[in-house]
C-alpha cells in the first residue's frame, strides 16, 4: 500500500552547502526509523534527516489511512508526528535529531494490524463527518464491539507502563517584559525594551532565534546575524529557545515551556511579566483542493525551510502556486538548488490550481486551463494566519480583515499586553524591526511605570487575495481527516455555527489545535451558508498554545509529608506507620491490644501532635466560640476546658474538640487532626465575612506544639514526677481544667485534664522543639510505672469502648448534630449559631438517623464497618460505623447509625454483613460500652 510505483526510493536529496543551513556537516548522527538504520547531521530535524535519505512518508492519516508527509515543516506539521523511544507524539519536523534515536511511525503503519474484515467495513463507513453518530445504533449490543475496533484507529503514539517518570522542574521568573516570539520583530522588541532599561525574557519556539529571516536570502541572513549578535550581547535579555509561551493567564501570569534542557526533560517557567509583547508571527495556511494531502504537496515556507535550513531537496520537478511573495521566493529557492520549476501559477493573473493527482504521492497537477503537469512537488502560497491565542487570553477577540484575508487582533488589549510583527501587520524587514523596537520600548516604559509615550509606527496587514478553497474539495483538517465537503454536508445538516461544526466534524480539534485548519474551516462554512467570513466568526483559541507535557506541568512532585517531632523515636521503636492525611503516624508498636491493656492498667502515652490547635486572643473570643460551637461558651472560667461540636450551616457535624480558657482574653482551641485546616478556614471565614468587627486573632499552633496524651490510672503519678510548678491533685486540678506550667524543665507547657480513652489522662502541649525530649523523659521516668507508647489503633479501640464518636467516621456528610446523639450539647435557646435553623427543624421533626451503641449477640463476631442494618424486607435502616473487639470487656462492640425509631435501648436489629450473612445486634443504652459513668476519667 505504501510503496507506490513511482516512489523515488532512497534517493539521497541532500543539497550542497546552503548559506543559512543549520546542519553541522562535520557531525554525523545515526538513528533508526521503523527499525531501519539512518544517518543525519547534527542540526537536522528528524524529518529533514529522513527526507535527506529519501524517506517521504512519516505517518498515515487517522481515518482513511492516507500517507502523510511534510506540509509545513514546523512544530505544527500534522503529518510529521512520530514515536521516539517511549515518547509518543513527537513533532518530527521540529525535534532535533539526536544520536541513537529510535523513531517509529505511529499510525498503525506500515501495516494494518487489525482484523481486516472489520477494518474494511469501518473504512466503508468513514464516509463523512458525524458518521459516528449516525451509525452503529442498532443493534445496540454491537456498539461495544464496534467501539473496540474504532479505538484501534486512535491516532497517537504509545505510552508504556514501564516508562520512568523523568525529570522535570519549574522556575519562577519576574521579567519586566516578556517577548513571545523571536523573529525580527520579537528580537527588535526585546532590544527596544532592554535598551530602555527593562529586564527581558525573549522566548522562541524554534531552536534558534530569527523566525522567517533564517530561511531568507543573503540580506535577511545579514540582518539576522546583526540582530542576533545584538540580542546575544545584551545583558538585559535572557533568551529561551526551543521554548514556547503556552498561555497568558490573568495579570500577565505567563507560562513558558522550555524543552530539552541539559538536566531536565522540560521546565515550566512561570513568569509574572509586567508587560507581555506578543510577537508570534504568522503561520502559513494550506489551500483546500483535491489531493492537497498527497506527499509532495507542501507550503512555500516548508519548501524554503527544507532547502535553506537543512539543505534538503524537496523534489525534482515542481509547480508553485504563488499568491504572494513567499511563493515567489520559494520558486526562486527551488530553482536555485536545481529543482526544475515547471510552472509558477499566479492567481493574480488568472492562474488556477484545480487538483493534485497521484497514487500515494504527488504525480501530476491539474491547472485551471485544463493542463496537466507531471511533477513530484507542488508548493502553495495562499496566505497567512495570525496565531492570536495569547492576545485572546488577554481579552481580545480577533477581527476579520477582509483586505488582508486574515483574522487580526481586535484591538482590545489591556495596557500590559502589546503586539508586534506579523500578528499585527506586514511590511519590509525595516518596518517590522522599527515596529518591534518601538513596541519593546513602549512595553518597557509601561513596565517601569514611565509616563513618556512612545510613537509606534504604523504596521498594517497588507492586502492579500482571499484564497481558501479551489473549485475542488480537499482536506481541511489533516490530523482529523476532515474534508471540505464534510464541512459543507455538516453545515447543511444544521451544524451551521463554527462552534457546532467543529465539534461535530472534529475539524480543528487535533494535535495542531486549529493553527492550520481554523481559517479554512471558517471559510468553507461561510461559503456553505452564504455568509461572509466576518459574519461566520472564528472559534475561541483555547490554551495551551502548544501541547505541554504532564511531566512539565507537574514539575517535581512536591507532596509534603508531616511528621511530629517524636517521629525519630517512633521509627526506632517499631512503630507501624499509617498515612493520616498529610501526616504519617504510628498505628501501633507491635500489639495494639497489649497497648490498650497497658493504658487501662498502668499508663500509656500517645503522640497526638497532628491535633488542630488554634490560639485565640481578643475580647470577642467567647462570641466567636458561641457562634461556631453548638453549645454555650459565655461562662467559661479561666483555667477551665469545655467540649464543643461545630456544625455547618446545614446542621451537619463538621468537627469537635475542646477549648480551654488560659486567660481572660486568651483561649486555646483543639480540633480534630483531619479537620485542623478546615476549622481554621471556617473560623476565619466567619470572622472576615460576617463578623469583621469582632476582635479575635486566630493563630494556628499545630506545628508550634508537640502534643502528647498521657492516659491511664498512673498518669497523674507519671506527670507529677516531671511537673514541679502545678498541683496535679484532683482537688486543685480537676477534670476539664487546664493549667500552664513546666514539664521536665520545659516552661510554657499547657496541660489539660481531658480524655478520649476514658482513663484518667492529661493532654500536654509542649513547645515543639522539646517534644522529643519530653516524650523520652516520660518514657524513662515512668519505667517503674509500666509506661508504654500506644498508637492510633489502641486509641480507636479505647475511644470506642468509651463510645466517643469520630467525626467523619461515625458521622458522615449528612449527619446533623442531633443524629450524632448530641441533644444534650446542642443549645437551641442560644440566640444564633452556625447550623441553628437546621437543627431547630431537626429537633421539631425528630427524624433522621441516630448514633447508638450496638453489641452483636455473637460476642466474638465483629461486623465490618459499613455493614448495613436492614429491615426484614431488606430496606436500609442504618449501618455500623465503628466496630472492634474490646480487649477490656472481652466482646465485640460497635457504634452505628440507625433510624430514629430503632434507637431505643434493647431493640434488636439485623446487621447484614458484606458476605451476605444476617446477624442480630442489640441497641445499647449508652454509646459507652465501658465505664459509662466516667468514674475512671474523673478520678
Amino acid at each position, binding site marked *: 500500500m505504501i510503496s507506490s510505483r513511482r516512489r523515488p526510493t532512497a534517493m539521497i536529496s541532500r543539497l550542497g552547502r546552503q548559506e543559512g543551513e543549520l546542519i553541522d556537516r562535520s557531525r554525523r548522527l545515526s538513528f533508526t526509523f521503523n527499525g531501519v538504520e539512518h544517518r543525519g547531521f547534527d542540526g537536522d530535524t528528524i524529518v529533514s534527516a529522513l527526507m535527506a535519505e529519501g524517506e517521504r512518508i512519516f505517518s498515515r492519516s487517522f481515518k482513511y489511512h492516507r500517507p502523510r508527509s511534510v506540509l509545513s515543516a514546523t512544530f505544527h506539521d500534522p503529518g510529521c508526528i512520530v514515536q521516539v523511544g517511549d515518547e509518543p507524539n513527537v513533532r518530527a519536523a521540529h525535534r532535533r535529531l539526536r544520536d541513537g534515536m529510535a523513531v517509529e511511525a505511529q499510525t498503525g503503519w506500515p501495516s494494518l494490524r487489525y482484523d481486516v474484515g472489520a477494518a474494511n467495513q469501518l473504512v466503508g463507513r468513514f464516509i463523512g463527518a458525524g458518521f459516528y453518530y449516525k451509525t452503529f445504533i442498532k443493534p445496540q449490543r454491537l*456498539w461495544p464491539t464496534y467501539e473496540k475496533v474504532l479505538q484501534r484507529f486512535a491516532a497517537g503514539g504509545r505510552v508504556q507502563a514501564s516508562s520512568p517518570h523523568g525529570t522535570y522542574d519549574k522556575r519562577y521568573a519576574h521579567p519586566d517584559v516578556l517577548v513571545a516570539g523571536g523573529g525580527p520583530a520579537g528580537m527588535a522588541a526585546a532590544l527596544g525594551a532592554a535598551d530602555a532599561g527593562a529586564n527581558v525574557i525573549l522566548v522562541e519556539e524554534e531552536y534558534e532565534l530569527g523566525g522567517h529571516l533564517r530561511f531568507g536570502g543573503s540580506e535577511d541572513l545579514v540582518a539576522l546575524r546583526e540582530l542576533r549578535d545584538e540580542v546575544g550581547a545584551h545583558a538585559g535579555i535572557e533568551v529561551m529557545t526551543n521554548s514556547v509561551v503556552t498561555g497568558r493567564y490573568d495579570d500577565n501570569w505567563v507560562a513558558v515551556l522550555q524543552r530539552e534542557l541539559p538536566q531536565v526533560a522540560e521546565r515550566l517557567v512561570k513568569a509574572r511579566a509586567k508587560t507581555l509583547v506578543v510577537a508570534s508571527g504568522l503561520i502559513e495556511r494550506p489551500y483546500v483542493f483535491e489531493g492537497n494531502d498527497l506527499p509532495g504537496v507542501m507550503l512555500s515556507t516548508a519548501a524554503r525551510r527544507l532547502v535553506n535550513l537543512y539543505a534538503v531537496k524537496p523534489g525534482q520537478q515542481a509547480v508553485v502556486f504563488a499568491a504572494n511573495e513567499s511563493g515567489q521566493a520559494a520558486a526562486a529557492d527551488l530553482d536555485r538548488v536545481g529543482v526544475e520549476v515547471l510552472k509558477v501559477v499566479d492567481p493574480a493573473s488568472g492562474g488556477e490550481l484545480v487538483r493534485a493527482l497521484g497514487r500515494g504521492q504527488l504525480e501530476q497537477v491539474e491547472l485551471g486551463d485544463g493542463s496537466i503537469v507531471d511533477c513530484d512537488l507542488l508548493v502553495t502560497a495562499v496566505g497567512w494566519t495570525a496565531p492570536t491565542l495569547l492576545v485572546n487570553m488577554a481579552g481580545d477577540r480577533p477581527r476579520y480583515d477582509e483586505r488582508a484575508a486574515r483574522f487580526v487582533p481586535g484591538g482590545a488589549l489591556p495596557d500590559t499586553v502589546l503586539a508586534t510583527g506579523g500578528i499585527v501587520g506586514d511590511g519590509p524587514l525595516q518596518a517590522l524591526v522599527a515596529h518591534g523596537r518601538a513596541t519593546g520600548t513602549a512595553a518597557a516604559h509601561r513596565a517601569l511605570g514611565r509616563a513618556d509615550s512612545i510613537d509606534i509606527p504604523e504596521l498594517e496587514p497588507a492586502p492579500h487575495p482571499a484564497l481558501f478553497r479551489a473549485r475542488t474539495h480537499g482536506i481541511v483538517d489533516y490530523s482529523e481527516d476532515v474534508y471540505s465537503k464534510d464541512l459543507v454536508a455538516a453545515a447543511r445538516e444544521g451544524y451551521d455555527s463554527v462552534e457546532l461544526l467543529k465539534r461535530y466534524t472534529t475539524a480543528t480539534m487535533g494535535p495542531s489545535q486549529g493553527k492550520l485548519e481554523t481559517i479554512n474551516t471558517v471559510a468553507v462554512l461561510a461559503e456553505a451558508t452564504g455568509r461572509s467570513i466576518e459574519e461566520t466568526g472564528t472559534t475561541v483559541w483555547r490554551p495551551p498554545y502548544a501541547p505541554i507535557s504532564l511531566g512539565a506541568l507537574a514539575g517535581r512532585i512536591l507532596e509534603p509529608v508531616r511528621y511530629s517531632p517524636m517521629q525519630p523515636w517512633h521509627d526506632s521503636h517499631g512503630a507501624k506507620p499509617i498515612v493520616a492525611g498529610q501526616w504519617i503516624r504510628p498505628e501501633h508498636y507491635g500489639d495494639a491490644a497489649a497497648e490498650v491493656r497497658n493504658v487501662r492498667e498502668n499508663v500509656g502515652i500517645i503522640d497526638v501532635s497532628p491535633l488542630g490547635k488554634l490560639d485565640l486572643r481578643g475580647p470577642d473570643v467567647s462570641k466567636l466560640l458561641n457562634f461556631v460551637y453548638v453549645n454555650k461558651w459565655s461562662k467559661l472560667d479561666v483555667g477551665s476546658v469545655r467540649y464543643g461540636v461545630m456544625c455547618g450551616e446545614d446542621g451537619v457535624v463538621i468537627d469537635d474538640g475542646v477549648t480551654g480558657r488560659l486567660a481572660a482574653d486568651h483561649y486555646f482551641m483543639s480540633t480534630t487532626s483531619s479537620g485542623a485546616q478546615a476549622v481554621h478556614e471556617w473560623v476565619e471565614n466567619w470572622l472576615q465575612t460576617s463578623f469583621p468587627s469582632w476582635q479575635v486573632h486566630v493563630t494556628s499552633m499545630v506545628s508550634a506544639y508537640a502534643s502528647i496524651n498521657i492516659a491511664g490510672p498512673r498518669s497523674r503519678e507519671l506527670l507529677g514526677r516531671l511537673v514541679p510548678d502545678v498541683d496535679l491533685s484532683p482537688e486543685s486540678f480537676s477534670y476539664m481544667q487546664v493549667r500552664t506550667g513546666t514539664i521536665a524543665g520545659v516552661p510554657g507547657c499547657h496541660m489539660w485534664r481531658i480524655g478520649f480513652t476514658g482513663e484518667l489522662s492529661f493532654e500536654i502541649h509542649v513547645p515543639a522543639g522539646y517534644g522529643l525530649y519530653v516524650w523520652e523523659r516520660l518514657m524513662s521516668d515512668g519505667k517503674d510505672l509500666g509506661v508504654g507508647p500506644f498508637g492510633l489503633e489502641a486509641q480507636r479501640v479505647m475511644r470506642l469502648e468509651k463510645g466517643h464518636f469520630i467525626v467523619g467516621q461515625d458521622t458522615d456528610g449528612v449527619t446533623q448534630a442531633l443524629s450524632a446523639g448530641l441533644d444534650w450539647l446542642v443549645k437551641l435557646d442560644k440566640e444564633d449559631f452556625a447550623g441553628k435553623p437546621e437543627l431547630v*427543624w431537626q429537633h421539631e421533626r425528630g427524624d433522621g438517623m441516630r448514633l447508638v451503641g450496638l453489641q452483636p449477640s455473637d460476642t466474638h463476631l465483629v461486623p465490618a464497618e459499613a455493614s448495613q442494618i436492614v429491615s426484614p424486607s431488606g430496606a436500609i435502616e442504618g449501618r455500623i460505623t465503628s466496630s472492634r473487639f474490646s480487649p477490656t470487656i472481652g466482646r465485640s462492640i460497635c457504634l452505628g447509625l440507625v433510624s430514629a425509631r430503632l434507637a431505643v435501648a434493647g431493640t434488636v436489629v439485623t446487621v447484614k454483613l458484606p458476605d451476605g450473612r444476617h446477624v442480630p445486634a442489640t441497641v445499647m443504652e449508652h454509646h459507652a460500652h465501658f465505664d459509662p459513668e466516667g468514674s475512671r476519667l474523673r478520678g
Partner: protein
Amino acid sequence: MWRNFELEKSYDVVIIGAGVHGLATAYYLAANHGISKVAVVDKGYVGGGGSGRNTAILRSNYLTPEGVRFYDRSVQLYRTLAADLNFNVMFAPRGHLTLAHNDSSLRTMRWRAEVNKLQGVDSEVITPEEIKRLVPFMDVSDDTRYPIIGALYHPPGGIIRHDAVNWGYARAGDRLGVQIHQNTEVTGIRTEKGRVSGVSTNRGEIGAPIVLNCTAGWASLVSAMAGVKLPIITHPLQAAVTEPVKMFLDAVVVSGSLHVYVSQTDRGELVFGASTDPYASYSMRGSLEFTEELASHVLELMPSIAKMRVLRQWAGLCDITPDFSPIMGITEVEGFLVDVGWGTYGFKAGPAAAEAMAELVATGRTPQLIAAFDLARFAEGRLASERGAAAVGH
C-alpha cells in the same frame, strides 16, 4: 439536524437553556405528552454551557436509596437513548473506579458498595491487585505518598459522548415540532399577578404560560428575572484533555483525595477533571494552576505517562446548592419552573430529570422521583442531602 425558525408570538412552553436538561425536557414534552408547541431558547449555541463542557461520566453508585433510584433511572434511559433518538450517543460502560487512599475513604467505599448492593446496583470494593489488573498503568505500590489501598468498582459506570446526547435530543425534538432558537438571550421574564406570562429576548417578546429555567450556571441570574431567589452559588469547574495515544486506560478512574478523575476516549485522548474552583465566578477561563495540580495528581496515580501532553483546557460553570442536590419543580411564581442546581453532576441526570420535569409540566403534578428536590425545602428545613444526590463528585 434541527431547523432555524423565526420567533413566534407565543408558545405553550418556553424553555430557557439549550443544554441537556432543556433539550431533553422539550423532547419528552413532545414525545411522551404530545406537547410540541415548545421553544427552547439559548443565548449561545446548543450545548454551549455545561452540557458541552463536561467530562461525561455516568454512574449510579450514589449513597442513599433516593439518590441511587434517581440516577439509576437516568443511566437506564441513557442505555437505550441511542435507539430512542436514532443517534449514537456512544455510551461506553467502561467501569468506574473510585480510589481509596486511606482507611476512612475505604470505609466510605464499603458503605457505598453495601448500599448499592442492597439497591441492586452493581458495585463492590476491590483490592489494589484487582485495580492493577483493570488499570495496569496504576501505581498501586505502597511507597507512594498517597498509597492506593482499594477502590469502589462500579462496572456499569462509564462515559458518553456529551455532544451526541445534546444533538440527539435537539434533533429528535425538532422532528416532533419543538423549535430551538440559538443566539436568543432571555433578558427578562414577564409576570402578571404572580403568574408567568412570557419572556423578553434580544430577538423580541415571547408569550408563554409556562417558562422553565434550565440554565445551570446562570440559573440564579435567570430566576432573579422572575423575582425568584435561588440558593445557588456558581463556581467554575475546569477540565483538560491530552493528545491521543493508543488505548491503555479502560476504566474511569476517580480519586477524591487527589481531586482528579480521568478517562480515555475512543479517540485516545485522556480527559481530566477535578473539583470546582474554590471561588465563586462566572468566568469560563482555564487557569495554569489547575493544569499543574491536575498533572501532579495524575502522575501520582500513573507515573509512567509523564510524557503525554495536555492539548486543551477549558472551564464551565456549576450551579452549586447548599445541600449538593438539584432543585426541580415549581416556584412561588406560578408557571415558572426550575430544573437547576446541577453542580458538577448534572449531565448524567439529564434524561431522568427531563422526563420528570416534562411530566410535571404536562400533568401539573410533581412526580415522586423528584419530590424530594423541591425549592421549598430550603425554606422549610428539609435539606435534601439526606435524600442524597451527589455530594460525592461527578
